[in-house]
């Protein structure tokens, strides 16, 4: 028997990285919000790697922050090492990554949520979605509590019919020893969702005291801290740095694994879910790259008040006894004690082409999904979707237009467009190479790109928005000023130029032009511009990047203009592709399936050819 337990505008199911962002965004936008979780102690849990950010993912966190999300701020409170990756490469591919104190990360996030107005947090398992007139109307939990609502965001992570596999052992379970959610996916199926079965895995955690670090290579982070949140830009963040360590597998390790391959569920057929290629298990690597003599593994701390260490690179679904055996062949791990054994996990997800760009489902109105349920992988990918789904669930309830970010605006836009347009066969991970306009979509300018949207959505304060405008002005003013500062080809100047490692002048140029030269920084040019005012670190950085890459930025801008003209050609909602004779059959089916919003999106569907797009163009013109 169920009973009416309450009434909300938005209910968020699941309090992982997607759910937390969704609930905070919805509540902060003024919608009465309920956040349900299977276990309050699993809120914002990091069941896999102990870090936030990394290539491509760091961009997502900066974008979340620019839009008014929480992830960046939360990791800034709880990191124990940070590093900007790819500093030897161009600005477009530089990404920030921080090692997190996992437990502290959870605590801080939980505390923020508990202190947010309009937001209730409850430990309840949602078992059924209620609908009325093809719209969501409520949620029933396992205790029979019925909550009425206008919108629902499902962020179920790997919990739906979760199944743990460790070698020849397998059982029903969620991540990290938490129990699974076995009923909700049946409710989704009943509503008409097509479900996928996906797989992921995590390596073992071992006791720090059982490791001989003297046999490994120690790795520290950057000395100068770059915060994730733009709000912390000028603050001195307090942290207690912990090192990571690098170790290697060897012939013996590979031998143990090869001898026990028959006990791996991957080879015995005991795993049916599709796993991601970008995190293959160690046994997979050894089989596929048989000629490689050794593989790297990174030993990373899980937090300050714990001895658990994470073994990046050693994900495995071999039986526990084999895991112990092969780990002990590794230098430094001879006496290692496993605290949590590596496992693979299978779970239900929804086919993401059933989802709109707003993350509302096409199946039931008012039902939004975010995170691993949409076929993605990663904390950052989840949080990004959670934020958008939370914003749009609230907009839906408040009868406002959804926030849709396109591919030219952000990594978030690329992520959502990719999964909803193309679908995915394996858990989807962000890579910078998925982004067409990555020179424009840098992590350093995420605030310039997205904070205006965050402000518009009510998630960024007026003060922060005005600071952004001031910052933008400062950058533009400095750029204009540098165009006026001239350097003559005098002997003295040419001497200085040679000293900073660049070629002497024949004609007068401006400081602006000098910065365009490779390897010349803004600071290098101060000797020609002695009266310059002292600017903040980020103004200087932005000025330098914008000048240096100006020509290439223009080039990308031109491709964006072309891209936008296709995105502006909206396909009518009632268009019947089956009636358009000139479309090829495959294109008709795909278009009917995915129902793209505009021609640009249509052109990205695999199976829709350029000539099909021409046919659609004509169709659009006819109906004008």
């Amino acid at each position: 028997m169920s009973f009416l337990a309450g009434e909300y505008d938005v209910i968020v199911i699941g309090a992982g990285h997607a759910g937390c962002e969704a609930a905070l965004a919805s509540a902060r936008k003024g919608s009465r919000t309920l956040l349900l979780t299977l276990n309050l102690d699993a809120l914002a849990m990091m069941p896999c790697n102990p870090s936030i950010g990394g290539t491509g993912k760091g961009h997502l966190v900066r974008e979340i922050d620019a839009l008014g999300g929480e992830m960046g701020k939360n990791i800034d409170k709880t990191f124990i090492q940070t590093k900007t990756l790819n500093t030897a490469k161009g600005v477009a591919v530089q990404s920030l990554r921080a090692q997190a104190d996992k437990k502290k990360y959870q605590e801080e996030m939980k505390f923020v949520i508990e202190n947010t107005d309009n937001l209730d947090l409850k430990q309840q398992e949602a078992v059924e979605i209620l609908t009325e007139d093809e719209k969501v109307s409520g949620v029933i939990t396992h205790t029979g509590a019925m909550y009425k609502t206008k919108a629902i965001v499902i962020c179920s992570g790997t919990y739906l019919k979760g199944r743990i596999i460790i070698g020849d052992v397998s059982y029903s379970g969620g991540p990290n020893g938490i129990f699974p959610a076995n009923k909700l996916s049946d409710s989704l199926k009943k509503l008409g969702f097509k479900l996928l079965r996906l797989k992921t895995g995590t390596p073992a955690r071992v006791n720090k005291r059982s490791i001989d670090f003297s046999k490994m290579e120690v790795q520290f982070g950057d000395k100068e801290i770059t915060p994730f949140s733009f709000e912390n830009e000028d603050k001195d963040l307090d942290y207690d740095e912990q090192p990571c360590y690098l170790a290697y597998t060897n012939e013996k390790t590979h031998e143990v694994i090869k001898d026990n391959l028959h006990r791996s569920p991957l080879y015995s057929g005991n795993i049916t879910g599709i796993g991601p290629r970008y995190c293959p298990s160690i046994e997979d690597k050894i089989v596929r790259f048989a000629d490689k003599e050794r593989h790297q593994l990174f030993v990373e701390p899980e937090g300050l008040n714990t001895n658990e260490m994470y073994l990046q690179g050693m994900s495995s679904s071999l039986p526990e006894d084999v895991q112990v055996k092969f780990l002990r062949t590794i230098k430094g791990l001879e006496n290692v004690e496993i605290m949590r054994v590596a496992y693979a996990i299978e779970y239900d997800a929804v086919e993401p082409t059933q989802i709109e760009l707003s993350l509302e489902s096409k199946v039931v109105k008012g039902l939004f999904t975010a995170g691993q349920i949409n076929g993605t992988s990663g904390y950052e990918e989840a949080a990004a979707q959670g934020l958008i789904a939370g914003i749009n669930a609230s907009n839906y309830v408040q009868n406002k237009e959804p926030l849709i970010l396109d591919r030219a605006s952000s990594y978030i836009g690329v992520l959502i467009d990719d999964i909803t347009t193309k679908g995915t066969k394996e858990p989807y991970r962000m890579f910078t190479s998925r982004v067409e306009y990555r020179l424009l979509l840098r992590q350093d300018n995420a605030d310039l790109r997205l904070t205006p949207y965050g402000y518009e959505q009510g998630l960024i304060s007026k003060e922060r928005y005005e600071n952004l405008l001031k910052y933008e002005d400062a950058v533009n003013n400095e750029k204009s000023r540098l165009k006026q500062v001239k350097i003559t080809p005098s002997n003295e100047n040419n001497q200085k130029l040679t000293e900073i490692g660049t070629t002497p002048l024949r004609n007068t140029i401006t400081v602006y032009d000098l910065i365009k030269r490779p390897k010349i920084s803004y600071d290098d040019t101060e000797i020609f511009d002695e009266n310059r005012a002292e600017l903040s670190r980020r103004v200087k950085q932005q000025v330098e990047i914008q000048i240096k890459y100006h020509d290439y930025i223009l080039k990308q801008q031109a491709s964006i203009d072309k891209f936008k003209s296709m995105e502006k050609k909206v396909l009518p909602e009632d268009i019947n592709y089956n009636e358009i004779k000139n479309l090829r059959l495959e294109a008709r089916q795909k278009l009917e399936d995915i129902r793209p919003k505009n021609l640009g999106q249509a052109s990205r569907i695999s199976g829709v050819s350029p000539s099909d797009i021409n046919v659609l163009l004509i169709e659009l013109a006819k109906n004008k």
Partner: protein
Amino acid sequence: MFKEDTIAAIATPSGYGGISIIRISGSEAFKVCDRVFKMKKGSIFDVPKNTINYGHVVDKDTNEIIDEVLVSKMCEPHSFTAEDVIEINCHGGMSVTKDILNLVLKNGARLAEAGEFTKRAFLNGRIDLVQAEAISDIITAKTSNFAKSAMSSLKGDLSKRIDDIKADITNMLARLEVTIQYPEYDEEDLTNNEIVELINSMKSKLNKIIATFEKGEILKDGINVAIIGKPNVGKSQLLNALINENKAIVTEEAGTTRDIVDEVVNIKGVPIKFIDTAGIRNADSKVEKIGIDKSIAMLEESNIILFCIDTSRALDTEDMDIIKMLPDDKEILVVLNKMDLNTNMDTIKAFENYKTVEISALKKEGIEKIENKIYELTGLTEDDEVGNTLVSNVRHKNLLIGAREDFDNAIKMINEGLEVDLAEIDINSALGKLGGITGETTSEDIIDEIFKNFCLGK
């Protein structure tokens, strides 16, 4: 795919009509026109709509005047395409018209695809529904035709060879990307030298494909062969012998062939257009002056130059002057004529370092030798037949040339010391262009490649 950029094309049928029109349509039509068109006063922006304006087409890089033209200006939506439209009326010659078109393309317009002006007219509502249905049919027809022609042009090994270059690019991008996505794994970075070397090898593959287009063009459109020489060395006789037709006037009096006469002859399946230039010499007469200027222009337009010499006489200053004006970048075949008369050995010796052929135009001896030499100089072989060339489609050729430019840019950026991920913008652009011929390569393909070849992950 349809794009609303500014397009241009020659709007009049190709041939030798009195006037040709180059049409430019799109939001930047006036801007493009302004970059190539100079009026006595003001610019195209200042003149009212629906006017015809006198001026010159000037290549601003060289400051060279290309032609004297009339330019019509039409403003949106009152034009054929309902966009801003410029029409340049120029003097009919194909070479001038092509030069102007190339200049326009260099200054921001894109070459229009077949039927694209009509398509825009339709899309912008200038054509009514009945016409629209008709065009819809045409476009569908074009698609199936395109499919057919694509099938036939891809039937050779074009698609295989392009896919090969695409695979090289994808492979290189995967190697570049893997160290970007996984900076801490011990995969080795490609060095700049290695990258440049890889791009150069792709470029040379691309060049080979582009060269086949040029061969295809020769087979389709033929080549121009100019006949040059001082008066009375037997140029018209030679032409007559080559075409077996008495079109050029043959006379004993120096300087009577004033108009440029041309004839098309089929040599081993290649259309060869012979251009008999006016006898070049230092003329005082004004009429002849024009003829001589035209001859010089004709040399520019020709692919092969037959330089006619009277071997019965010693070389004089007039011969020497012609030698001096022979362009370096053309194939030159020296025709040693009048071998039936007493030969002056010094004259023959002077051309030791040239490709030569000995004939007697009067007695029609050695004509076949000239034909063989000309065929040789086209670079064609018996295997090259129409339909056998890899690239015959202009759109394909433009995409290939565009991809080559992207490669050049990428190399330039790397050599300038810029980060490789910037050069990747150009490399990706090249990949996109090649994809425009054989089908897209997506970022997913690159990611596939990464995980196929590199060992990474948690």
